[in-house]
């Protein structure tokens, strides 16, 4: 695929996600050319889950006001607890309090599916550790619209169920360790730059 067409990264994780995000996000450089939208399940929001931590550790900036915020390169958008995070066709984010999907609000599928409709072949979907089935339908939609999907290697995941479930239905373009996912995202960003 032509790297210059990559336009956005969506990331979903549940149990064990905090540590996984701490491994990936600080690796990305300040001039990273893609926006990153993240759903982290509330259930996994153990004490210590605080987007402010990422502000201190990441070169990328964290979006504060979320409602209808324009999606900008090099910025991280975290779904607020108890709200779904969606991508609008005019490349802004929107929030909803629609019913839970896969017992979750925010739901990974909701983010992935709406982002797939907007970014299509330019979307990279990343599914990390978790003990849920959320995210698989979203990854399939991303593939269906021509995008690329990276799934954490279940043998390296704190909670292997979520990645395992996605891999079993063929929703993964590549299966990688956290470190490899971070490197891949970094390299693809560098290619997008050129």
């Amino acid at each position, binding site marked *: 695929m032509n790297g210059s067409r990559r336009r956005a990264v969506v990331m979903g994780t549940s149990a064990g996600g905090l540590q996984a995000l701490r491994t990936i996000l600080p690796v990305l450089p300040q001039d990273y050319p893609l926006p990153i939208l993240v759903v982290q399940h509330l259930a996994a929001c153990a004490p210590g889950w605080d987007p402010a931590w990422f502000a201190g550790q990441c070169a990328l900036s964290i979006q504060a006001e979320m*409602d209808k915020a324009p999606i900008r390169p090099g910025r991280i958008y975290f779904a607020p607890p108890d709200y779904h995070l969606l991508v609008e066709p005019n490349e802004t984010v*929107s929030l909803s309090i629609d019913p839970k999907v896969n017992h979750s609000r925010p739901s990974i599928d909701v983010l992935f599916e709406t982002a797939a409709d907007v970014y299509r072949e330019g979307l990279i979907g990343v599914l990390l550790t978790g003990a849920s089935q959320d995210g698989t339908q979203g990854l399939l939609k991303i593939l269906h619209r021509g995008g690329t999907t990276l799934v954490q290697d279940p043998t390296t995941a704190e909670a292997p169920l979520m990645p395992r479930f996605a891999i079993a239905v063929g929703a993964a373009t590549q299966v990688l360790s956290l470190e490899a996912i971070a490197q891949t995202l970094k390299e693809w960003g560098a290619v997008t730059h050129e």
Partner: protein
Amino acid sequence: MDVPVEIEDLEIRLLLETMLLRYGYDFRQYTSASLKRRLLQCLTACDITHISDAIPKIIHDRSFLDQLIYAMSVTVTECFRDPPFYRLLRQKVMPVLATYPFINIWHAGCATGEEVYSMAILLQEEGLYHRARIFATDINNKSLHQAKEGIYTVKNMEEYANNYRATGGPGTLADYYHAKYDLARMSASLKENMVFAAHNLATDGVFSETHLILCRNVLIYFNNDLKNRALKLFDDSLVPGGFLCLGTKESLQFTDVADHFVPLSQELRIYQKRVPR
């Protein structure tokens, strides 16, 4: 599933135009991602494969339209949602409302009414309900009907009891409903000064001269133009010094009325309309 995005979007546009031209319901300025999800869910449940297949059904079958509107506009709500918000209402807003001889409250987008009853409880506990009137409006007639009935499940009420406690309420939530089997009927005394009415923030006008407006988690479903339209209605409707309460992720920042208000609490999204000097 194999329909390209462009075709889906075309079908949705035609469907929304049909709803507007045939019945006057205007959903064109709703945020499109969640609207599309809701629409597709509803149509799948009705065994309709292509979005455009719903168009003739909308034109000829009013009950189908009602079903669609319900699916597109119903929102999830609960009693005393966001307890810190209600605690601040109790501590900072109620004392100001107490200075008015008569209190008008507009609850815009009240959905199934859980928060309307929460407000009535708050007013009763502060000794203000006898001189207050709550105008509770929604676009969704089915939700309004449920709100008016005031019947919820005991299971949900037991969950809301924690919310109530966290607001600093002096009693228990169970003081305000009668449980029978698994249903809870809200006390008749809470309904005394409630008025339920259909109102569409996209097409209707100013409601009444109000002292407090609650519109929480409604504007997240509107695009910026419609959000500004609704905020202008609220601005026109509020007395100087009146309060506007939004959802915890909604903001006046970057809106047309941003200068007309000062935050009482930016975190809890309670704003006070400026008093002209």
